[in-house]
């Protein structure tokens, strides 16, 4: 039976708690509170209530009929996490953690963000539950995602620019953890993915498994059988874990899609499971991109949400036992899927989700017509349209003229 992590927070060799001593007791407190909350039916009911009433769950399962017809292969279904409040699956976890923070009597949230999706989700729940929220964001990402920065501020959060390293998600996470070390007595650190020290990978999984639970039920209802393949994109990997968790015990092929950037054989990618080695990052033993001396290498992807040098320890474990297959998709392939999905199905996916779509299209093409491929469409692409316009049309003036 699949029963990880163990009481030390280990998924096989992976996971654990590699943090300064100052954070050990705060982590133990969160662990205790989480176990009690998960065993408490009223907590579950409250969580489900907010998912329904506030985030609009259950999200739809959409049969991608046009793409299925064009590919002439397996039937493709999209789990529409883009239809959540705030536009991505991140809100599931933010609601769960905010409720846990409330239960622990903490009224100040700390979050890190890359693309800004988790930052927006954290700021949103903070506003909803009457909490303060401070979001750490790399200066480079602040430039790339100006709209999300404004959103967070509008929601009442304080956005702190991070100037260390490459000024992206890894550095924002470092700074969020440093801030937490100093303020752990009255702040709750709300991690956005299935990364970090125990119990975070488990906690975020438990708050994201709703994706897979719903999708499984919806697909069974629609097709009368389980999907043949389930596909999701993997940066830290929270939407993928949320999706996969419900199918781990079933005879279903699971595929995680990493960002290959400009190619996994170039230095410019974020394909951590595919190309990384075992090591410790942000408190967890997992696969990561590093040099031979253990210095962490900056990843690259067109997608700010997949641009992370580590990966959730459970993914590292699932890869090591061969339960999930991890593949990768380049910027170019993701962009093509981004455009094609918009044009063909009338859905503009997040560029992160477009990585999963690109791989799902590939797979569906090669499968029989009576098979089904379920893909997690983790977020909507509104946040990306400006950047994609630059990529696709060259300079912005250009784009305006051509249109």
């Amino acid at each position, binding site marked *: 039976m699949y029963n990880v992590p163990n009481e030390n927070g280990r998924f096989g060799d992976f996971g654990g708690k590699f*943090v*300064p*001593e100052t954070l050990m007791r705060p982590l133990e407190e969160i662990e205790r509170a989480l176990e009690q909350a998960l065993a408490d039916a009223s907590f579950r009911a409250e969580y489900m209530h907010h998912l329904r009433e506030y985030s609009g769950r259950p999200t739809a399962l959409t049969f991608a009929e046009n793409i299925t017809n064009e590919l002439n292969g397996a039937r493709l279904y999209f789990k529409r996490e883009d239809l959540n409040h705030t536009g991505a699956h991140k809100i599931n976890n933010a609601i769960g953690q905010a409720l846990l923070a409330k239960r622990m009597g903490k009224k100040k949230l700390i979050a890190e963000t890359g693309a800004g999706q988790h930052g927006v989700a954290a700021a949103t729940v903070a506003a909803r539950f009457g909490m303060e929220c401070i979001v750490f964001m790399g200066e480079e990402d602040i430039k790339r995602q100006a709209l999300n920065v404004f959103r967070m501020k509008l929601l009442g959060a304080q956005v702190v620019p991070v100037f260390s390293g490459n000024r992206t998600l890894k550095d924002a996470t470092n700074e969020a953890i440093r801030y937490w070390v*100093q303020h752990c007595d009255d702040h709750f650190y709300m991690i956005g993915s299935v990364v970090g020290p125990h119990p975070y990978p488990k906690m975020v999984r438990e708050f994201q498994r709703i994706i897979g639970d719903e999708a499984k039920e919806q697909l069974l209802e629609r097709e009368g059988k389980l999907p043949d393949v389930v596909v999701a994109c993997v940066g830290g990997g929270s939407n993928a874990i949320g999706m996969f968790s419900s199918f781990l015990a079933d005879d279903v092929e699971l595929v995680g899609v990493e960002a290959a950037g400009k190619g996994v054989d170039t230095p410019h990618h974020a394909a951590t499971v595919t190309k990384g080695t075992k*090591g*410790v990052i942000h408190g967890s033993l997992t696969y990561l991109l590093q040099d031979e001396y*253990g210095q962490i290498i900056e990843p690259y992807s067109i997608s700010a949400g997949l641009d992370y040098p580590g990966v959730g320890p459970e993914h590292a474990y699932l890869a090591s036992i061969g339960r999930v297959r991890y593949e990768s998709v380049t910027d170019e392939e993701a962009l093509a899927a981004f455009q094609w999905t918009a044009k063909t199905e009338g859905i503009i996916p997040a560029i992160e989700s477009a990585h999963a779509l690109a791989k799902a299209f590939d797979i569906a093409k090669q499968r029989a017509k009576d098979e089904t491929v379920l893909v997690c469409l983790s977020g909507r692409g509104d946040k990306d349209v400006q950047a994609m316009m630059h990529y696709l049309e060259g300079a912005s003036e250009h784009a305006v003229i051509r249109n």
Partner: protein
Amino acid sequence: MQLSGTNMFIPFLVAGDPHPDVTIELALVLQAAGADVLELGVPYSDPLADGPIIQRASARALKQGMTLPRAIQLAGKMRKKGVKIPIIIFTYYNPVLQLGKESFFALAKENGVDGVLIPDLPFEESEPIRRLGAETNIPLISLVAPTSKERIEKIASQAQGFLYCVSSLGVTGVRDTLPEEIHEFLAEVKQYSRVPVVVGFGISKSEQVQVLKAHCDGVVVGSALVQKVEELSDRLLQQEQHALDEFRRYVEQLVAPLRDVDFYGGVKEDEREKRAARAHSLSAGEVARGSEAAIRVDERH
């Protein structure tokens, strides 16, 4: 080498900041100025427990090509140049994992390293390292923090070498004040510890050293020294003797409270003997420099 003692002064340097050769020079100055143990920090790309000063120093040292194996070898070079005080390697865990735990201890042994401190390796994850440390007689220094509470007993009872108390919540850095609860915290730690108890994080002034001294067996000063090195960086790179002298004077005023030395008033007799004994084992150049500084202190008298 023994890590034990009282009134210990434990300075921290980032290996390779601003240059590996300068780190050796600085270590010799620290020794001559009365350091009891040297903490040699290995620069890391993602130093989670460190504030901006040590982050910047790490970036400078990484640019010099510093790595964990090179930092350990730097300790070996220090030994050859006359550094006799115990050297503790301060490194994040990931570089140790990549070098390999056994290789790490073998290399450390070979280079005369006396201890290791890994800030992101808490007690629960540290068993293999503690075991290897015991086997090679290179103890893993444990940390306790103000949040440790009921964890203190467990950690303190297993502590090897000395026990490092984190003075306050937060990362390394220079702080104007230390929390009031620190004395209570130190008293509790001392009650459980069988090894010397030292305090670090935020200590940057001789007044703080003066206040802490009665409550612990030593103090660690990191960011304040690293900041001084940063300030003097260009001059140190040009091998300016005045820069080393300035560094030394800065260190001496920090050490003074631990030595019952009134820095501005002069050196007490027993302390002068202790220093002479220490200088005795140093290289000729160091002895010369050592006595020079002692004279300078006396001149102010």
